[in-house]
């Protein structure tokens, strides 16, 4: 646990020592605040944060690869990976440390978006359940995105390739969702289960369902497991 923390701390420092994190965070806040503003001004009677959440899911799709692309690719490129992997830490600890390090950036973002529910609280008396559940839901979606991003970063030593690959995989899941909504049969349902974003809907309605949790946790585990295997594969090549 201590090793995971050490690695995660180093990631957080690296993010907040560069302009990259600030730029992406600022970009995200501008976009999501604009969406929030539009929702506020156009729906004066009925304001739901869930619309903000589903828009966030799209914005994060573009943003996550920018944050995650450097995680392992940069270490491979500069050679610091040798320092990391010859230290007495397991490959799982490395992957988890990196994972939580990247997540910290998103936690910072979520902290900033708290201004939206607080605004609503100030002017009205919203139902807090869907807001809290919605935050949990979007956090889990981001956890899924980051696991894909981390995996992409583990397969290459080029940050650009890692970024595009992460974006490509996430876009693939997005298309799966898009196709699923146009199919009205078993396959539509099936694809809907595979895609990431449909699992967000119930959360934003205020429903925390274990079936979504199971999907998301297995999704995260799958990509982290693949990342660990890729890291290990250095030994046998």
């Amino acid at each position, binding site marked *: 646990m201590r*090793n995971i923390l050490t690695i995660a701390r180093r990631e957080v420092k690296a993010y907040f020592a560069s302009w990259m994190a600030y730029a992406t965070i600022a970009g995200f806040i501008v976009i999501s605040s604009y969406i929030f503003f539009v929702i506020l001004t156009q729906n004066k009677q009925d304001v739901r944060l869930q619309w903000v959440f589903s828009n966030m899911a799209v914005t994060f799709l573009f943003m996550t690869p920018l944050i995650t692309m450097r995680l392992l690719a940069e270490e491979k490129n500069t050679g610091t990976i040798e320092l990391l992997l010859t*230290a007495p830490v397991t490959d799982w600890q490395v992957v988890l440390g990196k994972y939580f390090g990247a997540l910290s950036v998103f936690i910072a973002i979520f902290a900033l978006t708290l201004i939206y529910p607080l605004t609503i609280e100030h002017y009205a008396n919203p139902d807090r359940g869907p807001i809290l559940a919605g935050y949990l839901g979007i956090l889990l979606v981001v956890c899924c995105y980051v696991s894909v991003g981390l995996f992409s970063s583990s397969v290459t030593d080029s940050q650009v390739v890692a970024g595009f690959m992460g974006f490509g995989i996430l876009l693939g899941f997005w298309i799966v969702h898009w196709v699923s909504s146009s199919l009205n049969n078993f396959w539509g349902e099936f694809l809907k289960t595979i895609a990431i974003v449909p699992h967000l809907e119930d959360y934003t309605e205020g429903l925390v369902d274990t079936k979504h949790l199971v999907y998301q946790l297995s999704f995260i585990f799958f990509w982290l497991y693949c990342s660990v295997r890729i890291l290990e594969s250095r030994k*046998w090549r």
Partner: protein
Amino acid sequence: MIEVSQLTKRYGENLALNNVSFKVNKGEILGFLGPNGAGKTTTMKILTCFMAPTSGGARVAGHDIFEESLDVRRNIGYLPENVPLYQDLGVRDYLDYCARLRGVPKDQREERIDDVIKKARIEEVENTIIRKCSKGYRQRVGIAQALVHNPPVVILDEPTIGLDPHQIIETRKLIKSLAKDHTVVLSSHILPEVSMTCERVIILNKGEIVAVDTPDNLTQKLQQSQKVQIQVRRAGEDATTKIQDIEGVTNVGTARTDRGAVTFTVESAMDKDVREDLASLAVGSGWGLLEMKQIELSLEQIFLQLTTTEEGVNN
């Protein structure tokens, strides 16, 4: 302290290490010497558990590299060929990160970091961002990093590369001083470097051990003869015989240039300097002496010599 047995590593079709076995005793400084691609770095990467061998095994500080990889890594300080530095960290922060990663307890961390900063002589850049440090300082920060957890085994891949002559001397001193408490394995492609710092040298070529010996013995082995090259305008028919008649000359080689000048390569015993006799012979015979120079064995020639002679022994 380190036992390596029958290590073989293949990269696809490429055989990087072929059946390499050796031992390093506690407190010893062992040097790997070899041209690029000889397998020095591969051996080190295997010892530090960064890579696994295709076959064979090794034990470091009593731990198996497969079964107890974490214990092996705990006991090793490693400076890779490309110094693994985080450009955005300060030197002290970087060493602190390395110490944490290697599990140095909190109450000893400051003390350890101060100690290696002093040892590696990087006090001046202690609080500088690594990106802004000079190459020499970076290299030394890399060495400090390898020592920060006070490991019993220290593995240094080309530790003096990129340093200026003064720093090289300092670094060699530092490495020598490590031998008291640490077992050191270092690699180099510079012969004097290895002979100055190491007690024992393993020469690798194309993934195989060509020679294992003390630097003194090795130097003797390598320098059985000295060579002088002499160029003359017009050599007589009997020039070769005449040169051969000089006392101490063991071998004479000739080569003719385009303009008719002749170059002789004269070999003689190590303790016999034939230059004076050679010069007076050339002048006395009226050959028209153009040039004379002593030939130092280049690294390539040393390896060539070693690999061919050793093969000769085996056959």
